[in-house]
């Protein structure tokens, strides 16, 4: 019973960490932010770009399209 609580605490810590490091923080150029009157409306993140490049590379090498991450 105690083990369960400790494991879940660890899980939550790791998941909170991953949510931050993968989805937040400073993002480099390559983002597309569509804004109207200085109000940001639509965000296309860098990760979307990374996906496309990877997909393209896989297509070039003739490999079948595989899932790109193992999280």
């Amino acid at each position, binding site marked *: 019973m105690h083990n369960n609580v400790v494991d879940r605490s660890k899980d939550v810590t790791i998941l909170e960490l991953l949510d931050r*490091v993968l989805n*937040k*923080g400073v*993002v480099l150029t390559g983002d597309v932010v569509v804004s109207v009157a200085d109000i940001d409306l639509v965000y296309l993140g*860098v990760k979307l770009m990374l996906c496309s490049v990877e997909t393209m590379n896989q297509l070039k090498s003739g490999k079948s399209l595989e899932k790109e*991450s193992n999280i």
Partner: protein
Amino acid sequence: MDKMIYAILSVKKKSGKLDALLATLKGISGASLYAVVYEGIIAVVSDIEKSDLITDRSNAIEYASIIESLVQQFPLLPMCYGSLMESTDAIAEMLGRNYTELRQNLKKVENMREYGLKIFCDPEKLKSEFQAISKNDINILIEPSTEVKNSVYREYVRNKLKEHRLEESIMTYVNSVIAEISGCLARLNAVCKFKKMPSATIMVDAVFLLRKDKKDELLKVVNDLKNQYQKLNFVLTGPWPPYNFVDTRIK
């Protein structure tokens, strides 16, 4: 060979403190960490092959650990995982282009830490509680004033209106909880950001930025809130590097 950036730091004067720290740490794939300097701000970098950049759990956690080690000693802005640039020159140029904003942002987070508060509710209980309140006045508006048969369309509107009023009542409640939290945290000089109902069970997802020595006061505030809102569950995590308080848009 690309360069991976972990964080952007501000360093007060030329001391060997940073280099000493970097010497004790290892980057992704065991690469060594080094600093790219532009006046008072520094990017912490390691060399990486693009093919090594697999987004798997252990790499991301390793990356975050480095940021965690750095934040103990320097004001910093954490980079999102996957921040690559082609060369140290490109990095220095990027720092230069964004110098003013980065400095401002770094000043804002100096000696601060981020904390996350998630507040959970039971959506069914919440709905039944607020349904009871708005039940009485539901019929007033859409009862036909003359002899009109009760059509399927009228019934549709009636149901939608019920839903709508329920949502509004719940949102009013959520706003009141957020107002209460903001008030309490203003006394701690904290910056707050809130997300309302990001999921059915998470009623509020909040992040706070406050001085690192205010941790105990924050705990007391959350404890008081727990006593005030007995039907809700609170989970507070932290301290974190300021991931949610980087407001610099990199040009």
